[in-house]
């Protein structure tokens, strides 16, 4: 076991799960939220020629997904280092 204590191992996993939960909440809100569930009210706003809900469904959610993965990879790298379990 790479951790100094059992405590550390649990804390590391908790931090990972919490970060994931935040990321997945955003993931859900932009795609299922803005793109599907709230698409009708959002469509009364416009982004150029795009109705806003339509934009989230066909453009915005994809950009957000890309950002989410890189933020997760970066934050996890920091957490890995903090607990001394990094691989690079």
């Amino acid at each position: 076991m790479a951790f100094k204590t059992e405590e550390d191992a649990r804390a590391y996993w908790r931090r990972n799960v919490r970060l994931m939960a935040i990321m997945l909440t955003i993931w859900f809100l932009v795609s299922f939220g803005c793109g599907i569930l709230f698409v009708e009210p959002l469509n009364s706003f416009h982004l150029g020629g795009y109705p806003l809900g339509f934009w989230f469904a066909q453009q915005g959610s994809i950009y957000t997904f890309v950002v989410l993965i890189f933020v997760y990879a970066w934050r996890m790298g920091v957490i890995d280092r903090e607990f001394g379990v990094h691989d690079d």
Partner: protein
Amino acid sequence: MSELQIMTFIVVGATFALYIGIAVWARAGSTKEFYVAGAGIHPVANGMATAADWMSAASFISMAGLIAFMGYGGSVFLMGWTGGYVLLAMLLAPYLRKHGKFTVPEFIGDRYYSKAARIVAVLCLIICSVTYVIGQMKGVGVAFSRFLEVEYGTGLIVGMAVVFTYAVLGGMKGITYTQIAQYCVLITAYTIPAVFISLQLTGHPLPQIGLGSTMTGSDTYLLDRLNQVVTELGFTEYTSQVQISYFNMFVYTMSLMIGTAGLPHVIIRFFTVPKVSDARKSAGWALVFIALLYTTAPAVAAMARLNLMTTIEPEPGQYLAYDERPTWFKKWEATGLLEYQDKNGDGLIQYSADPATNEMVKVDRDIMVLANPEIAGLPNWVIALVAAGGIAAALSTAAGLLLAIASAISHDLLKGVFMPGISERTELMASRVAMAGAIGVAGYLGFNPPDFAAGTVALAFGLAASSIFPVLMMGIFSKRMNKYGAMAGMITGITVTLLYVFQHKGIMFIPGTEFLGDMKPNWFFSVEPNAFGAIGALFNFAVAIVVSRLTAPPPEHIQDLVEHIRIPVGVAAAHDH
């Protein structure tokens, strides 16, 4: 031979020569190189290869065409096929890479300490991969039928022959480098015509911006104009056309997302990078490369629809005469994928939403992307490039899938379970025989594809979502999950999904064997069969959790294994064994 055909042969021939050159240069010398490319691929390169591996004929040829006719409803493909990478990067890829084996069933066999679980996983993998290959075959058939100007069936057979020759050359190492080249070909082929058309219609070179801009020489937004054109002909407004219901769209998107994360040929790509942190980044890079195409696709879709409509009916009430139809119209008629019927005998083409008066009796959605540059009147080399791109997309995915099928049979079934003593040579031979068999079956079923290419592929995602994703996720996130739960979950998930699909589309997709009885189509809360994977996955999770609580917990060393895969440090290169 027409100039276009000569040009197509040159461009497609040149790209083929390139792929084969790379495949020969980088061919695999060991089973480790054959299955996971020696686990030494840079994350950016791996991201690019993953993008090519995963963006198939469905993404390239079929998706924009479907969106063109589904409008907002087509968003399920856009969100579903990208959002899955977020799940993959956070829930699966790093942990499975840490485990460091060759195949997905191998992980399931180790984690659930059971050869039976491994066999069940192999069966699920084969069912979803073969369904997926059928979708590719449809795409390849469409591309070849148009550019060789033959019937769809003949195009399909030519496609099967090419995929066969190509895949047998492969091995993961060759496939990875070839896929990088294929990505470059397919993304260029997709964006160049999109940029041209966006410039023509809106004066803006970026299609992502063009779609939200005003039409050249007017202050009407392109999407508003499109909405107006389609509603005048009685179709639903483009930007608010819902696919069956919001609930169906929700479930459909979810199904594609977790299917993406559960598809074995995508997951094994993450076994090829050196480290766990690389697996996370690599998923991000893959999505960057995928997003380039996926954010362009909605523009291609809307612009193709608009161009098609305004070609047939330049001004309201003024119809194109059938005798004056453009060349592309005639060429696609020859493939049988486009059909005109002069119902009122006036020699004009009336296109409307009303089946009684509509004279465009068949417009196969899968022809839209390929026909798009022709409809817009772009130069022949662009059209040839699109053909090469479509074929690259189909080939790269078919190769990845065939590798997943072949490794499941040779590595998991033969070497792992039935004949542990076989030599490397026999194992490789078995792989190739398995590939050939899979192409044959998929090609045969491809004569009667259950849906448009993207629809068929969506089915494959549903099957992966309902069987493989839940057990992988629970294997990492729950130490309590045991072999009984996993097996019961996989079997329930895939059975429920298959029953719903076969009930609608026929047993093994063979027409005439649907058994709907007295039930309405989409009877389950108006969820269509392509979207049912998410429901299947729910069944999988539920059954697995209940069964595992009623049976003995997994042994101590399995709980240690879970602890071990949860942290990045201590990764070994994917081991030989």
